[in-house]
């Protein structure tokens, strides 16, 4: 099943990270695509942007941000949006994503992906802002489900329902982070399978996969390791519903050699090939 905008299945990619620049620039390795952290390239005219310019000549890229603050109650940062739009044009980004979260209030930025209360007022608030951002960017914003470590008393619906309604009301895409689904399911005690089964399949334009850490009392989304088998199982389940969707492996702490990250990412092939071999179209949403 293609997503409703016809955004392409870019295949299997990894994040473009500084430690891998020398390898990439000398080897130009085989890889389907790169995800680019928007904020790392928005405010530099130096080497990072120079590298990105070369990368986009050889690979498709998508932008992924952490500072949009779509759930913030402060006004949207127009200067940020201008720079984001310019970077998206410069990098010919397939799409632009960020997170369903808030990052700060009263002019401050915690630089964290803080959870939203999952209630009607928050849904209305985020819906209006997603529409504003999509209008400004002249493309549908894509939002990722974050890992979360707390739930608000005021929450009145599960996260998958919030996301599904948001996607419909604001006409946005979804970046389904399967590891985040798993982490949050353990931290909050919900059924991860129910989550991926309820996400509107034709809204999913990208997957994230990553490793996490078990802290005993909770799981912590660290992007520092191989993904757990439970996460791969969840990914396979989701792919059966959405069909082949661009898939990205995130490794941001203790980043190993380029080939190690790519090898981990390529574990996604199994689920993708199983879907292709089944020769069935994905279930309707």
């Amino acid at each position: 099943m293609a997503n409703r905008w016809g955004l392409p299945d870019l295949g299997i990619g990894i994040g473009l990270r500084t430690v891998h620049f020398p390898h990439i620039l000398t080897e130009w390795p085989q890889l389907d695509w790169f995800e680019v952290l928007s904020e790392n390239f928005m405010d530099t005219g130096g080497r990072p942007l120079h590298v990105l310019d070369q990368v986009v000549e050889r690979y498709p890229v998508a932008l992924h941000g952490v500072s949009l603050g779509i759930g913030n109650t402060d006004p949207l940062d127009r200067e940020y949006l201008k720079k984001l739009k310019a970077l998206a044009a410069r990098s010919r980004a397939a799409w632009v994503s960020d997170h369903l979260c808030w990052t700060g209030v009263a002019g401050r930025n915690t630089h964290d992906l803080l959870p939203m209360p999952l209630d009607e007022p928050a849904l209305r608030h985020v819906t209006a802002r997603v529409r504003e951002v999509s209008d400004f960017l002249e493309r549908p914003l894509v939002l990722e489900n974050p890992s979360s470590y707390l739930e608000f008393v005021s929450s009145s619906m599960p996260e998958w329902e919030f996301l599904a309604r948001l996607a419909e009301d604001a006409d946005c895409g979804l970046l389904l982070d399967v590891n985040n689904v798993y982490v949050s399911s353990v931290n909050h005690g919900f059924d991860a399978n129910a989550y991926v089964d309820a996400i509107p399949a034709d809204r999913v334009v990208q997957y994230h996969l990553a490793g996490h850490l078990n802290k005993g009392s909770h799981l912590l989304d660290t992007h520092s390791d191989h993904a757990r088998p439970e996460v791969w199982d969840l990914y396979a389940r989701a792919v059966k519903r959405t069909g082949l969707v661009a898939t990205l492996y995130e490794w941001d702490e203790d980043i190993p050699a380029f080939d190690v990250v790519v090898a981990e990412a390529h574990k996604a092939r199994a689920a993708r090939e199983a879907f292709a071999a089944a020769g069935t179209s994905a279930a309707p949403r």
Partner: protein
Amino acid sequence: MIELSRLQQWMQAVVTHPGEIGDALAAAPALRAEQAIRPSPTLSPAERLAIYQGMYPLRMEEALRSDYPGLAHLVGDDAFAALARAYVATWPSRSYTLNRLGDNLPEFLRQGGGGLRRPDLLADLATLERAVSEVFDAEETPSLTEAEIAAVAPEAWAEAVLEPIAALRLLELRYPAGLWLDAIRAEGDEHRHPKLSRRDSRLVVYRRNYAVYREDLEKPAHALLADLLAGRSLGEALEAALDRPRAPQPERLTGWFRQWASAGLFRAVRFP
């Protein structure tokens, strides 16, 4: 139902509080944790908030350490962590990018922020590292080419005003902070720490072909380059240099200028 902005202001106050979670909650009495946060089977509302609160200073410290590795090395891990907490309490991030978080750290140190010994030395080192970061990220502006320089008639140079590239910073410090960066970068973990005694240090930091360079300048060279960057014509700047006490020979002054031009420090030459 708690209004969203009120909830966010309360939660931000808690997660950015530098103390223990109990102190953080006590300092944010607008809400009680139980009013806003559900418990999990394993964690209380306060413990769930503490996960976010615990990550905040680590994230800030990591960002500052990335921009100030030499300073972090000089003061040591524990002192740098304490410095980062004290600094962020005064200068929290107000930008979408963490690259700007440490902009005020040199001045914070110079005013004694963090309570560390030798604040002027630390501030000088931070000033140099901030300049390196700024130059690293500055806009790429093409330098004057040899052909463009050669096209200027010799008699016209006296009136010439040089425009510097964006990726350039001129510094005047009271300590030889560059020695410290040289030492810790030269030999990895095996390096020997230089003695950092009070000694004036003048440097130019610039970028060429996406690599950042740092060069020590003699006092008259620094003054000449400062005049050029301030918009004085080459003739005025050279005249001023020759009027200063212990002025170098004119050939040295013009030699420095040629060296800077060939290093790509100037982006344009104009004749007002």
